[in-house]
């Protein structure tokens, strides 16, 4: 077996094994099945062209997800569609206090003592819809980490950002997600009522 066949065999096997994850992520990013399939095909093509940049075969997963993400971003530029921005500047991580101070009191009261049953009853489609409504940077990070199971380190490599930024995005993005789920339930009239006013925590 020549070195080229070995690389091609490895590449083909890894693509087959990661196909569902690639398609699932592409679907969440691109929005439609047809666009997702085109995105996956473009990713595979670009990845093979760039196979020489794969330094460590153990890192195939974050490497291919990086190519997928870059293809997706390039599609934005081609279609002149602006990514959804966040009201929170990523570089300005004022910490949890700043994040919580920006939230409405009703949400904070609920978030201080969330009800497990509420989440048990929530439809998976409602959760994914809430994720899809997040600003792109946070949505993509949560999809890679919490849906597709990449580590923070792998997600950092896939997105071309420092691991600290992944951690910051997870913290902010998950808080935004909680708020989005609460808003869904509130708008549907099923948000659990809070008997306590304000947030009570053990001293």
């Amino acid at each position, binding site marked *: 077996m020549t070195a080229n066949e070995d690389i*091609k065999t490895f*590449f*083909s096997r890894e*693509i*087959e094994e990661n*196909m*569902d*994850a*690639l*398609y*699932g992520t592409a*679907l969440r990013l691109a929005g439609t*099945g047809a666009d997702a*399939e085109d995105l*996956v*095909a473009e990713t*595979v*093509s670009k990845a*093979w062209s760039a196979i020489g940049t794969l330094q460590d075969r153990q890192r195939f997963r974050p490497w291919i997800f990086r190519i997928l993400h870059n293809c997706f971003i390039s599609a934005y530029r081609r279609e002149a569609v602006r990514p959804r921005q966040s009201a929170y500047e990523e570089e300005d991580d004022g*910490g*949890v*206090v700043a994040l*919580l101070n920006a939230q409405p009191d009703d949400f904070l009261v609920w*978030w*201080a*003592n*969330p*009800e*497990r049953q509420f*989440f*048990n009853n*929530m439809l*998976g489609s409602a*959760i*994914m819809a809430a*994720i899809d409504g997040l600003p792109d940077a946070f949505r993509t990070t*949560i999809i890679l*980490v*919490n*849906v*597709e*199971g990449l*580590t*923070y380190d792998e997600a950092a490599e896939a997105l071309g950002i420092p691991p600290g930024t992944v*951690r910051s995005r*997870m*913290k902010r993005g*998950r808080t935004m*997600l*909680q708020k989005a789920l609460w808003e869904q339930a509130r708008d549907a009239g099923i948000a659990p009522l809070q008997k306590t006013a304000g*947030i*009570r*925590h*053990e*001293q």
Partner: protein
Amino acid sequence: MSNKTDTHGHGDIGCLAAIEAFYAYLDGELSDPQAIEDFEHHMSHCRSCFSRAEVEKLLNERMRGSATSKASEDLRDRVRRLMDEF
């Protein structure tokens, strides 16, 4: 909400510091043993933070369980044909 951010004799980091470490801990990304110990200590006696952690774990499970999209056979065939040309 407790605003303690460092220990005060009782060894508790307070809710705000716990929230800062929350998601990293739940995602298995908190690597500093002291940070893990401090977080778990806080969880052991703060009902609100413990309740929130339980709910976030549930949400983690739900999100992980939603990774059910399957690539169609058409897509797999399309990619195989693509790779045959490499």
